[in-house]
């Protein structure tokens, strides 16, 4: 029992440190051979997943965890004034909610890569970078410190960009990776300048300390603009979405899936900045409407751009933009109504819908990208016009694709329906027009995926793929089955997820005072 307590106390840092250690150990273990290395990486991912679930169960039951680095507690000055100057991790229900997504997606990605990555060179480095991506995501989700958020954002960007260009011999990979890298670097530097502006005024970097001191001066407004635009850019919201299709389609399929989760980590940072750092000190209505408009633009433009695509991964990338719009819409409505009576009437429900959509999207969009990867693995093409008749031979892939496609279109009983219903209902009370746009986008999504299903899986067998279009190897099958099972389970029992994970997360995000008091003390 002592050991379990020790694990629980150190869980926030172990979740980060184990993948970090494993990332650098992977090239050394890789010298032993492919099997030992893959077993090592998968077991690390499984351990991290278990730690995240254990931590999540405790955070949701017993409240926030604060982990101080380098010493037993914060610094107490001789004058008796305690300053939160140490580097801390602050893990609340929203953080663990995001960490569950990141851990699950990373696990599925690593298992899938076992069979998918067959390149001659750089396999060990691939796993190193994949684990570093996990570190970056967990770090952004757990940190209670603005500067560390920047550092983990950069770790995440560098690792993801290197992985987008993993197949550097392909013509489009260096272009997509360079575009993503320039956008991420500029965005991250905006974040750094914003952090410097905040530091210049309040002389602290701790998120809770800045949050409790914030005045919303002119400089704070500039910092807010820089932070919101940078994180919105990183999560692919529409005016800044141009990197998404290139990077998503150039990356190997498991990396694309983790990239979706990485974008969601940026979205978490956006929500954390808006709700916890600024919160009610700013004009929540204006910022909320800004996020809502970003969301609606992303939803609509994303799906309309997806309709004419012929490249299966590019099409799915545009759908990823469109689906992020739902999350921004839901949480934006929550932000716009924050602090008013409308928040309890429908704002919190909208936030629940938006947050629930994050986990749903990570699972079904991950599943869809993996099926696209499976098709690519067998046929070596992403062009929809060259596919056909795969349903005859790749039966399981077709089944997984149907599950993912119905979930993304919001068809009951799959999980996309549950979160979309929450969003439709609550947003309708906020502004009926937005709700109608959201439903229209859902219909267009279904149309688009019907097209993909028809051209890839239906029709007669194509002679050029005779003997090639077989069922995928078992690691890829396991990864897809894992995600499909989660999609179906969350669709069948949405109440369990909403009550046990989503509601605490939404309340943690909206409950700014708890977050600040956990560090600053006082009532």
């Amino acid at each position: 029992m002592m050991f379990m307590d020790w694990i629980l106390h150190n869980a926030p840092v172990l979740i980060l440190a184990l993948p970090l250690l494993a990332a650098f150990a992977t090239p050394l273990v890789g010298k032993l051979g492919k099997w030992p290395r893959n077993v090592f990486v998968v077991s690390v991912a499984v351990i991290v997943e278990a730690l995240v679930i254990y931590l999540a169960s405790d955070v949701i039951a017993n409240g926030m965890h604060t982990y101080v680095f380098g010493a037993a507690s914060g610094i107490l000055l001789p004058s008796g004034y305690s300053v939160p100057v140490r580097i801390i991790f602050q893990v609340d229900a929203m953080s663990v909610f995001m960490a569950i997504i990141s851990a699950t997606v990373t696990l599925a990605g690593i298992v899938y890569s076992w069979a998918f990555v067959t390149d001659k060179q750089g396999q060990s480095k691939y796993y190193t970078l994949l684990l570093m991506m996990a570190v970056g995501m967990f770090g952004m989700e757990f940190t209670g410190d603005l500067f560390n958020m920047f550092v983990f954002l950069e770790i995440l960007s560098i690792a993801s960009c290197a992985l987008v260009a993993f197949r550097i011999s392909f013509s489009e990979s260096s272009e997509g990776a360079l575009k993503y890298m320039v956008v991420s670097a500029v965005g991250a530097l905006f974040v750094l300048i914003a952090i410097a502006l905040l530091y210049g005024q309040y002389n602290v970097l701790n998120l809770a300390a800045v949050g409790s001191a914030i005045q919303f001066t002119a400089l704070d407004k500039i910092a807010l603009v820089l932070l919101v635009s940078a994180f919105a850019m990183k999560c692919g919201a529409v005016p800044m979405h141009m990197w998404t299709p290139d990077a998503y389609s150039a990356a190997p399929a498991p990396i694309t899936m983790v990239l979706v989760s990485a974008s969601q980590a940026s979205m978490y940072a956006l929500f954390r900045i808006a709700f916890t750092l600024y919160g009610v000190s700013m004009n929540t209505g204006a910022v909320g409407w800004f996020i809502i408009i970003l969301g609606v633009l992303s939803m609509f433009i994303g799906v309309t751009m997806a309709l004419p695509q012929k490249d299966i991964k590019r099409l799915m990338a545009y759908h990823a933009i469109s689906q992020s719009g739902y999350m921004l819409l839901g949480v934006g409505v929550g932000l716009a109504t924050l602090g008013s009576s409308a928040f309890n009437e429908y704002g919190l429900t909208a936030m629940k819908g938006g947050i629930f959509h994050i986990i749903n999207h990570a699972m079904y969009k991950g599943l869809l990208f993996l099926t696209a990867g499976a098709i690519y693995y067998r046929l070596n093409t992403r062009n929809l016009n060259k596919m056909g008749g795969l349903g005859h031979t790749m039966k399981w892939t077709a089944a997984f694709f149907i599950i993912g496609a119905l979930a993304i279109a919001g068809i009951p009983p799959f999980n996309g329906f549950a979160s979309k219903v929450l969003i439709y209902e609550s947003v309708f009370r906020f502004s009926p027009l937005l709700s109608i746009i959201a439903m229209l986008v859902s219909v267009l999504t279904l149309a688009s995926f019907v097209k993909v299903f028809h051209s890839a899986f239906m029709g007669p067998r194509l002679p050029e793929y005779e003997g090639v279009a077989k069922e995928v190897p078992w690691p890829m099958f396991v990864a897809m089955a894992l995600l499909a099972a989660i999609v179906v389970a969350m669709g069948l029992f949405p109440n369990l997820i909403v009550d046990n994970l989503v509601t605490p997360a939404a309340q943690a995000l909206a409950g700014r005072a708890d977050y600040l008091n956990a560090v600053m003390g006082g009532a």
Partner: protein
Amino acid sequence: MIANIPYIAAMAMVVIGIYACVFRRNLIKVILGVALIESGANMFLITLGYRGLGSIAPIYTNAPATGNMTLPIPQALTLTSIVIGVAVLALMISFAVSYYKKTGTLDTRKGVLKE
């Protein structure tokens, strides 16, 4: 006014960097633009550390007996950001090299990817 010059210089570097990123087509110049933004941000951070006039760098070895030392946090942040900048720059230049090899040009509008 004289104390504000470093801030103005840092922000001017950021603006020049953004200009280079947005309006230049040559990839190397875009990358230089990112490097300029980074330098501007670093300069801004360092300047923030010396807000108190007359403070000295926080090095205890052979420091003068009187006078104020600056809080080393901005320096630490700058150092971290420089380290990250090295990695970002190396990665971007590698991509540019690879792009040049495939297209034979560094101009993003002229480059036609070979299949």
